């Protein structure tokens, strides 16, 4: 740009962007791979003008001032094309000649990504690094009085229950009288949380499902996966693998026409039905599948026209009060499968979670409550919702658990925690902390995208373009050119790796605490934290 050229309020320099592309002219072969791979066209091949001045102190030597040009990579500064830091350019560069680097100060771009009055939407998590869960330590180590167990060789039964469990008195009475006992599933405490077919690419979905099938059928780990709100492929609905699947119904009811119609043809019952009322990443907001991703396949499964955005309403349209409609919805779902399938609601973390829970305790059908905290991930949401809305999951789960303890129903309504579990990579430690705070299990989504498919998104706002279908790894894209990059078989293999290593780590946590016979739900005496306020709030030990 000329130094006296006109500028607009949104005219930015490279320095003003969150990511700066460092490009090394000496190494660059000008192969063009980086510009081809960039999902947001942030870089282009450029022609650069260069002046070379040659002077000499020798008398009579030739002096020159030449202008030449060279070719290279230029970073665009238009906000619409700003670099997202995914570093796919680095990945494909044969000579390591290019890399995006985070700006050394807060960017100016953030003030300009609302062109046309449309606020920023994106995927990923809330852009806050760190996690309270990481600060929780396991302090009740079994020493001489009760020897720590051998995590590698001792036997463990680390299963959890999903379903409404009756009180011992009621249960025995119903056993005797042949009464109806609510269905209860014995499952692995790490659940793959709802990521819809549509939000995820076909390759990713297939990989997840294959991984889950392998874990169940070859390794005997009863891992379950939620479909998210996007329906379920017809062949899966009619297969024996459906028993590993939790079907999610949410406010858009996408795909439920297909599901309901396939009930008579189902070979097995699904694991459970999850009614989504909220999502931690965008509490109080509905699902949002943008038109970029609604191709004919997705449209067919969801039962909608293709090429249109699919914003689900923030709440179920049939709902005007929790007392009636949630109870009715739970009951209708039970009825659809002959009262053989547990049905539970999932809500976003909120200070009103206790009110929801108290209602569920009085509903004899509610099979659990999943709470998704503020650190949960999403495929698409408004930036403001992700960064500023929501409730941390730890205190929400703890409050709910202690409330159940107060009414004596801590074994009857299992709580599932989600949202930022493993956010910083410490999946087993975070999961164990939540379980000891009172969760019966945890749900993870984003972690698996990162670990099983190489998702590049981060809480430093790297990549996070899941919403527009341009996922450079093919995880959240519906463009075959992109999702062909992802091999479902390899995703499945990574899923298996993740679950096996999680299982080993979980044992490495519970064995030193002397626990092996049952999952240590609510074993809060094992927890400590170096933060007085948090210790008091969570009712665990303050340790320094």
């Amino acid at each position, binding site marked *: 740009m000329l130094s006296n050229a006109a500028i607009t309020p949104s005219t930015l320099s490279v320095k003003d962007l969150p990511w700066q592309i460092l490009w090394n002219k000496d190494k660059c072969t000008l192969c063009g791979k980086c510009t081809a791979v960039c999902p947001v066209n942030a870089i282009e091949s450029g022609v650069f003008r260069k002046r070379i001045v040659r002077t000499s102190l020798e008398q009579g030597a030739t002096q020159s001032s030449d202008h030449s040009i060279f070719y290279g990579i230029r970073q665009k500064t238009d906000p619409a094309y700003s670099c997202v830091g995914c570093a796919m350019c680095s990945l494909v560069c044969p000579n390591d000649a290019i890399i995006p680097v985070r700006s050394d100060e807060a960017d100016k771009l953030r003030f300009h990504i609302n062109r046309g009055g449309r606020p920023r939407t994106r995927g990923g998590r809330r852009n806050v690094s760190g996690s309270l869960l990481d600060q929780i330590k396991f302090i*009740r180590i*079994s020493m001489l*009085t*009760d*020897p720590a*167990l051998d995590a590698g060789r*001792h*036997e463990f*039964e680390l*299963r959890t*229950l999903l379903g409404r*469990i*009756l*009180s*011992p*008195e*009621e*249960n*025995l009475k119903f*056993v005797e009288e042949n009464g109806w*006992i609510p269905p*209860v599933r*014995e499952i692995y405490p790490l659940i793959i949380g709802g990521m819809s077919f549509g939000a995820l690419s076909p390759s990713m979905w297939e990989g997840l499902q294959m991984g889950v099938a392998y874990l169940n059928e070859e390794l005997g780990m009863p891992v379950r996966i939620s479909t998210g709100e996007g329906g379920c492929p017809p062949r899966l609905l009619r297969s024996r693998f459906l028993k590993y699947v939790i079907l999610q119904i949410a406010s858009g009811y996408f795909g439920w026409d297909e599901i309901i119609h396939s009930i008579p043809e189902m070979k097995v019952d699904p694991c459970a039905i999850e009614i989504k009322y909220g999502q931690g990443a965008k509490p109080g907001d509905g699902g949002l599948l943008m038109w970029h991703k609604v191709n004919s396949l997705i449209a067919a499964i969801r039962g909608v026209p293709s090429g249109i955005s699919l914003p689900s309403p923030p709440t179920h349209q049939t709902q005007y009060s929790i007392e009636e409609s949630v109870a009715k919805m739970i009951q209708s779902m039970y009825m659809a499968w002959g009262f053989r399938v547990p049905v539970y609601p999932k809500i976003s973390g909120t200070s009103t979670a206790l009110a929801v829970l108290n209602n569920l305790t009085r509903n004899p059908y509610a099979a659990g409550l999943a709470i998704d905290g503020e650190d949960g991930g999403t495929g698409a949401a408004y930036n403001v919702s992700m960064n500023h809305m929501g409730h941390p999951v730890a205190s929400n789960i703890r409050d709910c658990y202690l409330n159940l*303890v*107060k*009414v*004596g129903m*801590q*074994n009857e309504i299992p709580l599932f925690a989600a949202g930022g579990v493993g956010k910083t990579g410490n999946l087993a430690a975070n999961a164990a902390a939540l379980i000891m705070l009172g969760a019966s299990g945890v749900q993870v989504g984003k972690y698996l995208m990162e670990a099983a498919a190489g998702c590049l998104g981060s809480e430093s706002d790297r990549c996070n373009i899941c919403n527009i279908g341009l996922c450079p790894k093919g995880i959240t894209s519906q463009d075959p050119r992109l999702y062909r990059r992802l091999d479902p078989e390899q995703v499945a293999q990574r899923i298996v790796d993740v679950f096996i290593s999680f299982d080993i780590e979980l044992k490495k946590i519970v064995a030193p*605490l*002397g*626990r*092996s*016979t*049952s999952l*240590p*739900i*609510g*074993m*809060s*005496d094992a927890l400590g934290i170096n933060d007085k306020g948090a210790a008091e709030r969570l009712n665990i030990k303050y340790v320094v």
Partner: protein
Amino acid sequence: MCRLIALTSEEPLSPMIALRALDVMREGHDGSGVGLLLRDLAGPFENMKNAPILSGIFSEKGLKRLDRFMMDVGFMTKYRISVKPPKTPPPGVPRRDVYLVRAYEYPEEWENLSSVELYSRLLILRLELQRMGEEKGDMIIFSFWPDTIMIKEIGEPLELAEHLNVDRMDLGARVIMAQGRQNTNYEINLYACHPFFIQGFSTMTNGENTAFIPIREYLMSRGFQGYTGYQSDSEVFTHILHYTLSQLGLSIETYKHVITPLQDEDLKKHPDYQFLKQLKHSCRKLIIDGPNCVIGCLPDHSLFMAQDRKKLRPGVVGGREGLFCFCSEICGLDSAIPDRDKSRDFQPMHFDTVIVGPDRKEAEICCQTQQLPRPH
């Protein structure tokens, strides 16, 4: 660790047998507490089987408060043994004014109560007395129940016996439970000393209960007044026993299925699979997760021993018809019943519950994989 011994005998025994056996096993405890439970009493208590007996430690003031309180409720003393120990106790033993065992006559208006109501009132009264004692620090109440005496104190078992003159007391019993305690995690508190007792059910435990907090929370939320205290993580075993048998109406063979249920593979092969699966689900919060060896006594004076799934704690049962001993170690068993057929000693493993019924004929070994007894 702690060391435990329980005896059941047709002929009344002196508690000294149990205390001597504890002394033999002294490598396993440190004198931080001795607990003694006597049931099916002989001697002066033989003819007052239904009279509730209060056992505890009192200061002079506490004793006066007790008298006033019990008079007000309408209880009259029927018989008592009180020990005023020498002024200088052995090292490690606190100075006390009075150790009291006192049998009462029920107030007139209690006489026609149903047993359920009576037992409930006795429990409430004991809790009230404990509360009064904790308030002023002048009473420690161990039990208030018919045909039951309980003494607990800090110190070495034999030194304490001498200090309290146990040998010369007229204390004979057909069921004796005793524990020598190794104080580990918690400050020394006599309410943390085993055995624990609630409405005729008693247990003592070797080992630490790693699932203590969730179990305590669960028991306390059952809405039963007696599920309180928990100065020791082992008190929950007594209350789980009470809950299983008294509240749920299940048999002693089922107790082990509650505290340490079969793993899924074994469960599927069990003849009572459907029932046990339901029990495992609904009593999930009562799974103890060990490592523990539990020795207990039921209201009908049956004794039992159960190991948890890990079987990391010692425990042996031996004896002969009419006399059986449940003990932490074989040396303790040898001390208590030297003349027995040692080849018939049995060390229960992770599936086993050993039960000696009130007839004391034989030690029945109940394996968890066996079919449960059918209701008659």
